């Protein structure tokens, strides 16, 4: 990488001189001001010239393009590489040729590998990093389109069947496409699960009346449980919420234990009554069983 340090009477003069030496324009370089100029008394005493460091940025972009061309040459894939600069610290390389399918690979696997490798190679040294993205005959764009179509189709399916759908593992950019397409969908919501190379999107139904699928159903189950225990509390129902409020979230377990001790007598009686009920029921059913066989004979 080309770096030039220049001193001049003021910043602009120093920068201009550096640019002349690098034969570059202002948007192609990174400018660091090492020392600002200082005007001394009467412009003589304590005056200090400005010092700037100018680094040629385009170097990395060119390096990426050359590397890609060489790699493709050794892979025996004849094609053209076009370099574009969509923004600061970005470089887009588009590959065009006959056998581009080989560069793309299955679901863009080779293209993603190439992109990752080039990013690592280009950003090996130097502090300012650039993001290299590679496209092969409009593959990225068509992939985005097909992902949008797929997500809309699956969203309709999820809405109909009320079952969540897991997609295959994708890269973060591809997952983002699905998240953004279904962001404003009123029937489904999306989330990602799994660890990075195998992270995948799940499309789930938003269910307003019930708990819904996935995460909300867990919440629903939990609230159901707590409701049940509140009911079994019986006469103590009023005291229990205040007891809970007194404790923090972390003390919930302890609070629950204290609650259990308090309710021990009622539960024991509840068990007793339940057992009694059961015994009565079995007696009844036994007598019913005795009766039922005789019933048909009577009729």
């Amino acid at each position, binding site marked *: 990488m080309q770096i030039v340090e220049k001193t001049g009477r003021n910043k602009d003069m120093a920068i201009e001189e550096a640019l002349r030496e690098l034969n570059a324009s202002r948007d192609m370089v990174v400018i660091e001001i090492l020392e600002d100029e200082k005007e001394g008394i009467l412009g003589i005493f304590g005056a200090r010239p400005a010092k700037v460091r100018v680094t040629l940025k385009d170097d990395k972009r060119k390096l990426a393009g050359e590397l890609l061309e060489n790699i493709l040459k*050794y*892979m025996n894939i004849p094609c053209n590489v076009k370099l574009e600069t969509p923004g600061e610290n970005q470089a887009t390389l588009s590959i065009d040729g006959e056998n581009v399918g*080989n560069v793309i*690979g299955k679901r863009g696997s080779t293209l993603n*590998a*190439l992109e990752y*490798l080039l990013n690592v*190679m280009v950003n*090996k040294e130097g502090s300012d990093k650039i993001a290299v993205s590679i496209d092969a005959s409009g593959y990225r764009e068509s992939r985005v389109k097909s992902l949008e179509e797929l997500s809309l189709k699956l969203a309709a399916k999820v809405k109909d069947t009320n079952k969540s759908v897991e997609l295959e593992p994708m890269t973060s950019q591809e997952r983002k496409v699905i998240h953004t397409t279904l962001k404003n969908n009123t029937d489904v919501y999306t989330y990602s699960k799994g660890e990075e190379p195998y992270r995948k999107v799940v499309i789930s139904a938003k269910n307003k009346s019930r708990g819904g699928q996935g995460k909300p159903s867990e919440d629903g189950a939990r609230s159901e449980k707590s409701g049940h225990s509140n009911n079994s509390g019986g006469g103590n129902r009023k005291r229990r919420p205040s007891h809970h409020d007194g404790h923090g979230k972390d003390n919930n377990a302890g609070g629950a234990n204290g609650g259990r001790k308090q309710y021990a007598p009622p539960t024991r009686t509840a068990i007793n009554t339940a057992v009694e009920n059961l015994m009565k029921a079995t007696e009844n059913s036994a007598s019913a069983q005795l009766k039922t066989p005789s019933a048909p004979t009577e009729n």
Partner: protein
Amino acid sequence: MKELISLIIKSLVDKTDQIEIKEISGEKTLMYEVKVATEDVGKIIGKHGRTINAIRTLLRSAMNKDNKKVILEVLQ
């Protein structure tokens, strides 16, 4: 093929003079053993083996026409 590997490894490591690539040719497989300076080993393997796996993916697609398997190993 060997040139491709050496180009990739060269642009990944710092000590380019310590790269050794050995080709072992089999009937159905091509094996490459790569040796680099100890401080550069991590650079060609990458986080969770991401870099070495990316190289393997590239080699696989470069090999596609010959229908042979490519194995790339890093020796330490």
